């Protein structure tokens, strides 16, 4: 009943990881020949990882984003995260997995696995149930699109957001996921992307920025105070993102093998270092260390370590975190001011910029000469390959975002009207107030 290609899927996913791991997975090559045998330990961790990535999105991202907007828009923002996440989960199972991971197409897959109908419940892929792999990948697709909505929060109609989400997921996420993990033309170049720095973060960050530019600025942006309405939510959300991200990164190794130790420790210390860097940089340059800064620093570190967590050494992870913390602070404070766009929740400044820092940084810090464990002989060449994957993602995501918003604009319209926006989207679009 199952197609031949299916059991190889996770190993395709692994190809994006492999260049980053010197010799940690010796059994893998031979394992591909034999009939896959389930390992309960690997499965236990992948179950936990899938759950952790779900927790990143709901409640993690919903709180992180919801706390940063004004109290009149907290429901609007968090229902967007919640419903986009749910919708794309369903679409992933309906056609996403099939298009990204099955079939022969180089740029897009086939329709053989619609509704995962050709996967037997007892199929094992690598060392885990194949349906668990499907679920784990679903969380990635769903959270990526949910991330993007932060760019144009507080001013976009719910219906427009959903239209954007469906189109962008189908045409941008699936295509890039296939390039890196599925058909693999980017992976074939030798690009290192352990857990999705390009597919997830640069991709979403660009969509957020382009969406913000197309939708336009929030009313009053730059003149009136637009501040987070609940910073404890922001810190709680960032914390849950940190916690859940271990599922995202360590789970990308698809098991609980020896490399999980390095990946977990890198994810942990890079984030901690980025928190320190952002907070101290603020303290030095702006006078005060802030909670919003600490939370943002954590996300910056997490994003930066995502592509590189299996390639850099522990010292390299700390260095990467320090760099990412400072650069992302510069991006959301100075760069954003200079360019004047209104990316509500700094999806670009944190996810795209942090993702680029990580994707390029791994070419250097992943090299053995810099304490890394990746098979990088030529840093310059690797840097070039990384840059190509980054550039492709930027261009493609921009293109699709423009199309998606064009469709939304000419069907349901983008913005709810000035009075509605001033009154807040919660009441106007959802008929509810967050607090009573």
């Amino acid at each position, binding site marked *: 009943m199952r197609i031949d290609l299916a059991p190889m899927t996770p190993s395709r996913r692994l190809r994006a990881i492999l260049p980053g791991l010197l010799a940690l997975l010796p059994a893998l090559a031979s394992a591909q020949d034999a009939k896959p045998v389930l390992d309960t330990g690997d499965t236990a961790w992948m179950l936990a990882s899938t759950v952790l990535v779900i927790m990143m999105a709901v409640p993690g991202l919903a709180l992180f984003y919801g706390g940063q907007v004004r109290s009149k828009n907290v429901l609007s923002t968090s229902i967007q995260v919640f419903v986009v996440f749910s919708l794309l989960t369903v679409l992933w199972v309906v056609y996403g997995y099939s298009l990204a991971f099955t079939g022969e197409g180089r740029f897009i897959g086939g329709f053989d696995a619609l509704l995962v109908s050709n996967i037997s419940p007892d199929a094992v892929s690598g060392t885990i149930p194949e349906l668990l792999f499907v679920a784990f990948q679903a969380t990635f697709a769903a959270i990526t699109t949910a991330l993007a909505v932060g760019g144009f929060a507080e001013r976009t109609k719910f219906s427009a957001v959903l239209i954007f989400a469906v189109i962008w997921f189908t045409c941008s996420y699936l295509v890039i996921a296939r390039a890196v993990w599925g058909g693999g033309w980017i992976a074939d170049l030798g690009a290192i992307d352990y857990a999705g720095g390009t597919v997830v973060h640069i991709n979403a960050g660009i969509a957020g920025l382009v969406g913000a530019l197309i939708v336009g600025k929030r009313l009053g*942006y*730059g*003149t*009136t*105070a*637009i*501040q987070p309405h609940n910073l404890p939510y922001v810190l709680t959300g960032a914390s849950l993102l940190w916690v859940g991200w271990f599922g995202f990164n360590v789970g990308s190794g698809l098991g609980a093998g020896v490399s999980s130790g390095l990946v977990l420790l890198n994810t942990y210390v890079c984030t901690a270092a980025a928190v320190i860097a952002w907070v101290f940089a603020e303290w030095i340059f*702006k006078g005060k260390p802030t909670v*919003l800064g600490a939370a943002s620093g954590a996300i910056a570190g997490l994003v930066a370590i995502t592509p590189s967590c299996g390639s850099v050494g522990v010292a390299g992870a700390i260095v990467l975190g320090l760099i990412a913390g400072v650069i992302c602070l510069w991006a*959301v*404070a*100075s*760069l*954003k*001011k200079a360019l004047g766009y209104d990316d509500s929740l*700094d999806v670009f*400044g944190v996810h795209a910029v942090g993702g680029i820092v990580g994707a390029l940084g791994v070419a250097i810090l992943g090299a053995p000469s810099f304490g890394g464990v990746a098979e990088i002989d030529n840093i310059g060449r690797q840097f070039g390959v990384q840059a190509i994957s980054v550039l492709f993602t930027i261009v493609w995501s921009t293109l699709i975002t423009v199309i998606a918003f064009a469709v939304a604009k000419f069907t349901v319209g983008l913005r709810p009207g000035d009075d509605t926006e001033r009154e807040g989207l919660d009441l106007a679009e959802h008929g509810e107030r967050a607090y009573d």
Partner: protein
Amino acid sequence: MITAVIRPYKLDDLELAVARLGVQGMTVSEVHGYGHQHGHTEHYRGTEYRVEFTPKTWVTIAVDEEIVEPVIEAIANVARTGKVGDGRIYVSEIKQAIRIRTGETGTAAT
């Protein structure tokens, strides 16, 4: 009726000060205000904006005619820091005052 806008953290002191003058009740609420504090700018992730309003506490005290002056003075004394944003005191006329529990009016109801 004395109405004062003060810095929130001055409320405890105010309460003690007017209690000494025989004031036996008051009603307070959280408000935001600006005045000469107007125009302070803040930076938030690359955008600059004027923060007009700062949190203040609004105190309403109904007092007998004869202690209006000492109460005003007491409030002004404890609430003053000398820094911009100390607040205002307004005095207005009440035509009638009723204590709900007892139905008393006049002085007993202040």
